[in-house]
């Protein structure tokens, strides 16, 4: 358990764990540093390693969007589908942070995962 519920990020992790007790890993990540502000894991996945790598995924997609020169577009989330897992990256706090959630795709689908994360977005402004 790498979080303290006295911070907004820690509180968000706690809330998400309450909603999805079977989640595999969760982290609230600061994009400028690639470090997690709060994290928790119930599996072999190291959420801090994932945070660092996924920060690059987000930055790279932002680059792809910049190349498209889209007006008035922002990225809401990135869903990575693996054989048995879903990795969801939800951008919050005006794109300065993201919530990273790993769940088993047999137990949780995209709609549930999104719903749970949406509720925490406001907390992390």
């Amino acid at each position, binding site marked *: 358990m790498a979080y303290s519920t006295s911070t907004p990020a820690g509180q968000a992790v706690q809330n998400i764990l309450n909603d999805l007790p079977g989640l595999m890993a969760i982290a609230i990540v600061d994009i400028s540093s690639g470090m997690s502000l709060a994290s928790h894991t119930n599996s072999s996945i190291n959420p801090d390693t994932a945070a660092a790598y996924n920060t690059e995924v987000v930055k790279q997609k932002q680059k792809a969007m910049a190349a498209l020169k*889209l007006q008035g577009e922002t990225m*809401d989330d990135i869903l990575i589908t693996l054989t048995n897992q879903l990795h969801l990256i939800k951008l919050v706090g005006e794109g300065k942070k993201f919530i990273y959630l790993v769940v088993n795709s047999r137990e949780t689908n995209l709609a549930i995962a999104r719903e749970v994360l949406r509720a925490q977005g406001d907390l992390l402004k």
Partner: protein
Amino acid sequence: MGLFSSLSFRKRSQPQLVAPAAPAVEVAAAPAEVPAPVAAPAPILAPEPAAAPEPAAPAPSTQARAQAEELVRRVVQELPTFITVAVVEAATGKILAGQWAGHSGGALEVAAANAEVVRQTSQCIEALHLTETEQLTDILITLRHQLHVLRVLPQAEWLLYLAVRTQDTNPALARAVLQMID
């Protein structure tokens, strides 16, 4: 003589075997069948040691392009309201086939950047030691008004990049179509 020189040009990349003498005679006898020697291109490449150490992007074969175009065509057929459908070579980010509903400005850059997104994600999966049990299927990116789907195609090192408007296509539908395609 003219015929013979055009033949030797065609066969330039072939190792110097004794064999070419025989087809040369055949072709000289029947000039209408000049394309015939091309029919066996496979052994031409194999004994060329100089070309082997350089994996740098050999030009995609026309067959690969045709296959890529067919994939694009099928996606477009299912999702006629698309913004972009493209088949991209994962290793290089090169576009093999693609259709753009609007302007295609920056398409090359976008394809390369998206290939990089997939590469980064694969690296992440490796770093997390998930590769034994998990394989990357697709990446869905939700923007305010658009959905982007990057699907790793199983038959080759290709990506299918699809962009649609969220008002026209929902994520489940976009993924279902791409699943059906391959």
